[in-house]
Structure formats: C-alpha cells, structure tokens
C-alpha cells in the first residue's frame, strides 16, 4: 500500500499515510498543504504517534488550522484548514 492522495469534493482533499513512519506523514502533509489553496481542507490519516505532535506544531507555526483531531486505537485523523 502506498501513500494515497484523493480529492473528496471541491476544496476537500484526503491524504492517507497509515502504515508509514516518520517523516512521511509530516512531510507529505506539509507538501500537500503547500499545493492546495487557502481555505481548502485536508484530511490526514496516519498511525505514527509522534507525527501527531509534529503535524500539530507545523500547522501552528505555519498558520494552518487543525479544525478536528480524531484519535481511535492508534489511528489518527486530522482535519486541517489551510490558512
């Protein structure tokens, strides 16, 4: 299984990094956020716990807002709105 990119609807994208260790989830999230437009939403799925803090800090420092964090049995789903 490779990292999956998808467009869910207009302005809503998904990035599935499940099974991937550092630095993949945070690097792909950063690059994806650079590519989408301001106001677009990115849903990131991953299961590497330390990426959780890295993505949170990265968003906080770059003006992107995490509007929802969903954590369930080692799986993370972050919904990020590009600033």
């Amino acid at each position, binding site marked *: *299984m490779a990292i999956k990119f998808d467009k869910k609807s207009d302005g809503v994208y998904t990035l599935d990094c499940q099974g*991937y*260790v550092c630095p993949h989830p945070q690097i*792909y999230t950063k690059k*994806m956020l650079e590519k989408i437009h301001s106001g677009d939403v990115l849903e990131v799925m991953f299961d590497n716990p330390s990426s959780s803090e*890295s993505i949170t*800090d990265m968003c906080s*420092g770059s003006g992107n807002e995490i509007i929802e964090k969903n954590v369930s*049995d*080692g799986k993370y789903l972050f919904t990020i709105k590009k600033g």
Partner: protein
Amino acid sequence: MNEVAVSDGLIKKKLWALGIVILFAIISISTYAYNEYYIYLSAYLWFGFIYGMCLQYGRFCFASAFRDLFAVGVPRMVVGIMIAVILFALVSAFVTATGISTFHSSPYGIHSVIAGFIFGIGMVFAGGCASGSLYKTGEGSGTALLVVLSISVTQSSFVDIGGWMNKLVPAAWHESATAKGLPDRITVGDGWIDQYLAGYVWDQPITTFAETLNFTKETFFGAYVGNVLIGVFVPAVLLLAGVYLIWGKKRHIKEVIGEKITGISLRDNLAGFWQMILSSKRTAIAGLILGIACGLQMFVIEGLRIKYGIRNAGEILQRIGSDFGLSIRGTVFDPGYWYVTTQEAQWVGWVMQKLGWDNTDNIFFGYINGIPNPALNPADWMSLALIGGAAVMALLNNEFKFKRPQRDLIKWALIGGALMGIGSRLGLGCNVGGFFVRVANGDPAGWLFGLGMIGGAFIGVKFFNWWTERQMAKEMASLNI
C-alpha cells in the same frame, strides 16, 4: 478545535500493559531466586524499561529532532533533547564528582564528525535513530523492527570484515595496529575496523572539557563548571539560540507580543525564546526523567560492582555458570549506563558465531565486548526491556498498533539501518552512546559526533524532499490541484 478520542478496547490494552510489567517482574524475581547475581541483569532490565517509557512518552527521537527542524520547521524535539542533555549533564556531574562514574571519554577527531554524518543520513532515511527505532518497535512498528535488524546485522558484519577491505587500510594504520601488542588470538592486521580502531582511533586524544580547562573532573567544581557549564550548557544554549533565530522566533515571539512587528526588544526575544523552551514540555519532562534515570543507573551499577567486588559483568556471567562468549580479557559489554547499538551487534554476532562464523578474532567482539548469550547479556536485557517499556506506555495511551512494514519503506529501513550501523561503529556509539551520553559527560567527541549527525540529517532531508516531490508528482497527477 474539536478533539475526539475514541478508546475502544482500552481496558484490554491496559491488561496487556500489566501483563508486560508482570512478565518482567517474574523474570527478575525468579532469576534472583535462582541465583542472586541475576540482580545485576535485572538492574539493566528495569532501567531499560524506564528508558522505553520515557522515550515513548516524550516521542524522544534524535532523527525527528533534526529532521523535523530541517524538513518542516518544527524545533520542538531539538529543544527537548537539548533540555534533556543539560538535565542529564547535571546528574552525571554529580556522579562524576562523587567518583563513581562508569563513563569513559572517547578518542576524538575528524572520525567522530564523519561517523556522525553517516549516522545522520541513515537516521533520516530509516525514519528513526537507534533509540527511536527501538521505542517505535515497542509501539508495534514493523518498519522500526526492520531498522533495528539492519543496524544489528550491519554492525556485526562490519566489525569482522577483512579480505578486500584490508586493501583500503592506510599503511600507517596497519603498522600502528600491529605494533599495539594485542594477543595473537586477535588478528589485528586482518580486518578494516580492527586496523581503524587499533591503528587510528586509539592514537587520537581523549579528554573532557574539565581536563581541557585544567580542572580536576572528579571535583564538584571541575564536573559542574568544566563539564556542565562550559561543555554542555553554553554550547546547548548557543545551539538553541540559533534554532530560535532561524526557526522559532517568527512563531514564538508572536505568542508573547501578538502582532507587533516593529520595535521588538531583547526582552521580547528572551520571552519568545522561553516560550519555545516551554513548548517542548512533554519531551522535556521525558528528558528530565531520562536524565535522572541515566545518572541513577551509573550509581546502581557501580554500587552492585562494589557489592560483588567485580569490575565487569563478565565476572557475573562466570559466577552464574556461563563463560561462553566472554572476550579474551574475560569481559563483556557492560557500560553501566544507557547504550543501544553495541548489544544489537552482539546478539547478531552470537547468532553468526553459532552458525559457524568465527568472529571472535576481532577487537570489537574478541578483545572488548564479547558475544555472550543474548539471554544472559545485561545490555540486551536493557534493550528488550526498553521495547517493553515503550509498549506499556503506548498501550496505556491507546497508541499501540501493529503495523507491518510498507513495501516501499523496506528499502529505506534497510539502507538507513545499515548507514546507522556503520556510523555507530566508526563513532564508537550511536545517538545515545556517541552523542547524548558523551555530551552530557563533558566529552568533546560527543559534540563532534553531533555536528556530523546534524550535517547528515540536513543532507538526508534534502534528498528526502527531492524524493517525495517525485513521488507526489506521480501520485497526484490525476488530482489536478
């Protein structure tokens, strides 16, 4: 922000965590009941367990520290690690000043930088440093386990390879190595690492910051002023100041002064700097406990050595009836503090020896560390318990999940692990034994290894960025963003 944490099956996971603790307790109690000398191994076990819990809680990973800084501009982990180094240094200085430190400085030179550089590239490729890969194995990551295997196999092979690699040995190393008068059983003139160690590394200077300043390191003044203040605190604060100015200022100063963009004073910057330090609280807490535990381990192990009248665990193994795999001097690897990579090389070395590879004629196994049965190797007890401790913490926080290695990550795990294995042997330690422990004990070789490690991480990130861009261009072509 809306946060949802679903914790189905948490009770089951807590029971698993309890099961791991009970298993370790049974091992400790039953082996002690069988023979009291096993308490020496159990001491390593429980410190490993504490290290594992701290590493997982603090996400304590050196690869993450420098990689996240260069790749995504997040300074959190590098700040946390520097805080941990300072805290560990404070504890280590006390141990040194009281004269019972088990730490020995390493020869320093350009090799320390080169080793760190190779290690730094490897840890970025692998997705975790040597200790980080161990704790991530405890989180259920199959990729991290592959990294650990790759580090282990590479090291144990690298230290024994001669043949065509002998041709790469400078004549001066060969002459110097053969002149060292090592026992005949150690074929010091055959093997690249043997000649590197005896012919080059052993000829390099050894010191501490305290000794460089003409202080006696076994005094409180020497240990705290020479090693901690000059050798750790000042360089760590300078490094953090650089991190703040390049990566942290823009974000953290905003948190203390709002949107003001002109007239930012030194006081504002100091407040921003402090805000950056506070933002790494979780890693810093882990670092504090790690620092205390590392120092305490030195006390406990040295205390046990005094109690049993020994200088090395090799004597413990002999007393419990296992003299297999001792070095030619009757010793085994017994650092007395936190260490990661040597014991990884040892267990594979032991397996290779059982499969017929004569690897006891080299310096690393045959003269210094031995290849004891992993079931009786104190340092292996520490590493296994580290994985267990990380698993317990991950289970308690509902973060444990079995993850089999992704096909496209396997190559990175193997290449990265191999580079870390080579870097570890060239630098006589990894991010823990080669950097963290050394820096905290005032050994300049630690900073040189760290300098190389940061450079390697930078190059590794540059390569990774290029590679991910290519991947994304292919994968996202259909998205038309």
